[in-house]
C-alpha cells in the first residue's frame, strides 16, 4: 500500500490554511466532478482522490494525525495506543472525534476511499455530505454486449450476468452499434434508502454479413454479368429475408443502384417496419476472350463508331 500525499493531491503545500484547502478543493472538484465529465473514468478517479484528500485535510483531527505520522501511517495505531496509555496514566483521554466534513455528496464515490485512508482512519472515519444527508439513487452500472448483425435482425431474449445476478432482457430488433439502452433498477443500491441505479448496456455489433448497414437501410453490391447488363434479364439475390428476384433492364450501366423497398433492417422499436435494401450492380466484363469473340466485338465496335 502506497503512501498518499494528500497535499499534492490538492496541489497545496503543508502550510496551507483551512481556507486554502477549501478553495483548492472547490477549484479542483469543479474541474473533475463526474457530472461535468461524463464517461471519463480518469476524472472520476481524480474526483475520488480529491474527496479523500479533502476528507483528511479539512478535518483538524485527521489532518493532525496525517501530518504527525505521514509516511509512518502503518504504525499510527501503535503510536496512538502508546500515547493513549501515557495520557490515561496522566488521567486524560485520547482518540479521534471526527466532525462533519465538507466533501461532496453523490452516488459515484461511495466506498471508494483508498486502502491507505481506511488503514489510517478506519472504515467508519468517513464523513459524508454537506449536512443534507439526502437519499441518493444508486450508481449506474455500465455493461457492453457484443452481438452480430444477424442477432439484432429480430427481437430476442438474452440472459446477462451482472454482479452475479442473472438479468433476462429483450433485445429489440434494429438496435444500433454503439447504442445504449437503460434497464431500470438493475444498478447499484441507493444511498440512505434511495432508489437503485440503472444498468446501461451499450451494444457493440459486429457485421458478420455482406450487407452494409446505415440505420435501417442496408446496402450491398451484386456482380452482374456483361450480357445480362447489356440485354436485360433476371437475377436472384440474397436479402436478409431470403431470396429476391430482380429484373434487370437492358443496357444497365455499371454502378446502377436499385432500391428494394422494405427489404432492409427492422426499424428500432417499430414493429413490422423495415428500411430499404439498396443494390448496386457491378458489371463484370468478360475475360480471356477467344479469337472469334474478339472478331465479333471488333465488328460491334465498328458498328458503334
Amino acid at each position, binding site marked *: 500500500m502506497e503512501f498518499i500525499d494528500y497535499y499534492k493531491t490538492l496541489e497545496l503545500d503543508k502550510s496551507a490554511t483551512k481556507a486554502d484547502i477549501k478553495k483548492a478543493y472547490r477549484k479542483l472538484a469543479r474541474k473533475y*466532478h463526474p457530472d461535468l465529465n461524463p464517461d471519463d473514468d480518469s476524472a472520476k478517479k481524480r474526483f475520488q482522490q480529491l474527496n479523500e484528500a479533502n476528507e483528511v485535510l479539512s478535518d483538524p483531527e485527521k489532518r493532525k494525525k496525517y501530518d504527525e505520522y505521514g509516511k509512518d501511517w502503518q504504525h499510527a495505531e501503535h503510536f496512538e495506543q502508546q500515547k493513549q496509555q501515557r495520557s490515561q496514566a496522566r488521567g486524560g483521554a485520547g482518540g479521534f472525534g471526527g466532525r462533519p466534513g465538507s466533501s461532496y*455528496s453523490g452516488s459515484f464515490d461511495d466506498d471508494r476511499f483508498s486502502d491507505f485512508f481506511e488503514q489510517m482512519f478506519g472504515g467508519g472515519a468517513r464523513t459524508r455530505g*454537506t449536512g*443534507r444527508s439526502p437519499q441518493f*439513487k444508486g450508481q449506474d452500472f455500465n455493461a457492453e454486449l457484443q452481438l452480430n448483425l444477424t442477432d439484432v435482425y429480430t427481437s430476442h431474449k438474452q440472459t446477462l450476468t451482472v454482479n452475479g445476478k442473472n438479468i433476462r432482457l429483450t433485445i429489440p430488433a434494429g438496435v444500433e452499434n454503439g447504442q445504449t439502452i437503460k434497464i431500470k433498477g438493475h444498478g447499484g443500491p441507493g444511498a440512505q434508502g*434511495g432508489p437503485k441505479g440503472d444498468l446501461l448496456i451499450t451494444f457493440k455489433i459486429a457485421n458478420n454479413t455482406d450487407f452494409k448497414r446505415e440505420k435501417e437501410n442496408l446496402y450491398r453490391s451484386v456482380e452482374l454479368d456483361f450480357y445480362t447488363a447489356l440485354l436485360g434479364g433476371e437475377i436472384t439475390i440474397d436479402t436478409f429475408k431470403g431470396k429476391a428476384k430482380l429484373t434487370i433492364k437492358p443496357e444497365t450501366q455499371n454502378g446502377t443502384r436499385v432500391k428494394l423497398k422494405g427489404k432492409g433492417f427492422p426499424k428500432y422499436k417499430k414493429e413490422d417496419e423495415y428500411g430499404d435494401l439498396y443494390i448496386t450492380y457491378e458489371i463484370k466484363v468478360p475475360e480471356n476472350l477467344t479469337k472469334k469473340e474478339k472478331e465479333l466485338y471488333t465488328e460491334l465496335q465498328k458498328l458503334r463508331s
Partner: protein
Amino acid sequence: MNLEELIATEELCERYRVEHTFIRSLSKSGLIEVVTIEKREYVHCDKMADFEKLMRLHYDLDINLEGLEAIKHLLDRVNELKDQNIALKNRLGLYE
C-alpha cells in the same frame, strides 16, 4: 400521464432535503419539467437522474441557476455530438 411514474415535489424535497424554491427555480428556467395534476406538482421519474445531477452541481459545487443552465446546455451538446460521432462511425462502415 401515468401517476405511478410521477414523483410529488414534496416527496423530492423531503427525500433529498432540498428547498421547494430550488425545484421551482429549475422548473421556471426549463431545466426540469414539473407537471401539475389536481394542484399537486410532480416530476417524472425518468427525469430523476437529471434532477439529481443539477442538485449535486448546485449544492456541492455552489453553481447558481445561470451556471446550471449553461452546463446543461453544454452537456446536452456533448451528448448530441457523441450520438453524431456514433452515427458517423457507423456510416463510415459503408465505405470500408
